[in-house]
């Protein structure tokens, strides 16, 4: 896992080296003298060789220093921290939608294959896989915030700072639009995995023992069908991050996703670098955590 983290850092570092122009002259503007640029470069260590810079970057990374924003002069990590709350809450909200629609939908469809329930969820899953989340977000905003006025249309005020749980209502529409499009894949996986398991002999045995159908479905079938479902739920992490970049932008949420878009428009490359790094490292960690979850769900899997 450490190797993967190091590789991620290296790729990000190399990508950022490809950006044309050097950050010192960008920051100082057109009127800067040659000496001023050279001085700033020396303070940032940009006059050293690429390899030295790389080593410095890695050691800084593990000490929690991701550099400073060119535009705001703030440490990147601090900027990310200030915006983490929104993104984490949005992520959790969408995950609730993904799991809440995806898994029950898949199970219902699998219990009655080729019935109208199955066809309905197949249709929803297809629509979910094809509708862009930002378009769905705009349409929901138009109806529920604009026309009906039930929910706030945009923005989000911190709950940690104000202590007002009512602010969560700002995240309902974003979570719905982001979660719905990603629930599709989970529903399809849950369906096929449940269909496989329901054919197994131990399900027949459980029924023959006279267990109620609900116990058979939840305790015997779902648990055995859960490994592919967990895998696909962990896959949605990357999809949720991608979607969050656009969704935060649509709903004007002060999260990490809207920060990266602003940074791209301003070419604030230490911030882009920091976000790419954090997201990719998180991805590696989530894959690792997923592997550990398998052993929790299925006692036959043991890691030595």
């Amino acid at each position: 896992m450490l190797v993967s983290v190091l590789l991620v850092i290296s790729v990000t570092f190399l990508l950022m080296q490809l950006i044309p122009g050097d950050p010192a002259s960008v920051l100082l503007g057109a009127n800067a003298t040659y000496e001023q640029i050279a001085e700033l470069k020396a303070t940032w260590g940009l006059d050293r060789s690429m390899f030295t810079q790389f080593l410095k970057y890695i050691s800084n990374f593990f000490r929690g220093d991701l550099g400073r924003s060119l535009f705001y002069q703030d440490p990147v990590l601090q900027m990310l921290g200030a915006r983490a709350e929104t993104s984490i809450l949005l992520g959790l909200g969408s995950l609730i939608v993904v799991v809440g629609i995806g898994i029950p939908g898949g199970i219902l469809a699998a219990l009655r294959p080729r019935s109208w329930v199955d066809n309905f969820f197949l249709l929803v899953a297809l629509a979910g896989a094809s509708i862009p989340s930002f378009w769905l977000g705009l349409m929901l905003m138009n109806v529920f915030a604009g026309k009906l006025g039930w929910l706030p249309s945009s923005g989000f005020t911190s709950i940690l700072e104000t202590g007002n749980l009512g602010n969560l209502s700002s995240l309902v529409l974003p979570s719905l639009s982001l979660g719905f499009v990603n629930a599709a894949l989970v529903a399809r996986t849950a369906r096929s995995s449940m269909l496989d398991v329901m054919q197994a002999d131990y399900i027949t045995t459980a029924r023959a023992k006279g267990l109620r159908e609900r116990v058979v479905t939840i305790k015997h079938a779902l648990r055995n069908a859960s490994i592919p479902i967990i895998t696909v739920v962990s896959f949605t992490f990357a999809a949720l991050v991608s979607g969050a970049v656009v969704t935060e932008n649509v709903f004007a949420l002060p999260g990490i996703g809207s920060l990266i878009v602003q940074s791209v428009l301003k070419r604030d490359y230490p911030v882009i670098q920091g976000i790419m790094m954090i997201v990719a490292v998180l991805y590696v960690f989530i894959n690792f955590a997923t592997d550990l979850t398998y052993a929790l769900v299925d006692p036959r899997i043991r890691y030595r």
Partner: protein
Amino acid sequence: MQQPRSAVDHGTFMENFRRIGKAFGSFATRRRPTLIALAMLFSLLVIVAVGPIVSPYDPDALSVMDRLQPPNSKHLFGTDHFGRDILSRTLSGTRVTLLLGLSISLFSIAAGLPLGVVCGYYDRVGLVVMRGVDTMMAFPAIILALALMTIFGKPGIVNVILAVGIVWVPRMVRVVYSATLSIRETTFIEAARALGVSPRRILIRHVTVNLLSPVIVQATFTFAFSIMEVAALSFLGVGVPPNVASWGGMMNEGRMYLTRASWIILFPGLFLALSVLSFNLIGDAMRDQLDPKLREVM
């Protein structure tokens, strides 16, 4: 010396291509969703071909008198804040979208196919390169595309093709790699090796030819995902430049007028969703028909 064909005969490129087309054709006519998807794809292609002729207005013509008109008999899809006709702009966006989708899919094949074949055939190369490929896949698609757009500088059609194309190459490499690993172990490759066929010829004439179905299926999905991603980039203002009518760009411009003129966003989004849907359906159908085992790979 002429290679003996019978021992290792598994069809030329064109024969394989025709076989795939035939199998898919007979399959598609039996399944209604696939048929609908093919009809949608066909309509999109018609729009691309005759769009400029049938479109009622110049997609870029401004008309302040007609601004923000709801759909009516003069403007079927309504007009935007500059009085431009949404129908004409949506039709013109179809061309841009399909052109970008096609270029990105072809780019992912051109770069991913050779890389995947070589990685799958030579263990040592595969070991190193696949590590890099997996690392690239740790970055969520849109974040990598945004970073690449920063590196390339300003928005532009070619830059979008490169940025989104590079994002999808690792996924193509993965598919080709795993398919090559299994083809490598088949008896006809063994036979070809025993006959003394050169590695290069094995890779081109024997391995690549048999990769046609997984590559076509993956390219179809790449098409679907990439047009969605291009729209997202344009929506964020870093994709297709604003002077070109694109679906994502139109939705971005319409945001200010969402509650007053939702049709500016509704129609390009609908076209995008239907295009993605038809490519997803066609991809699913081809995968089921050509090789059910691929379900596990993709």
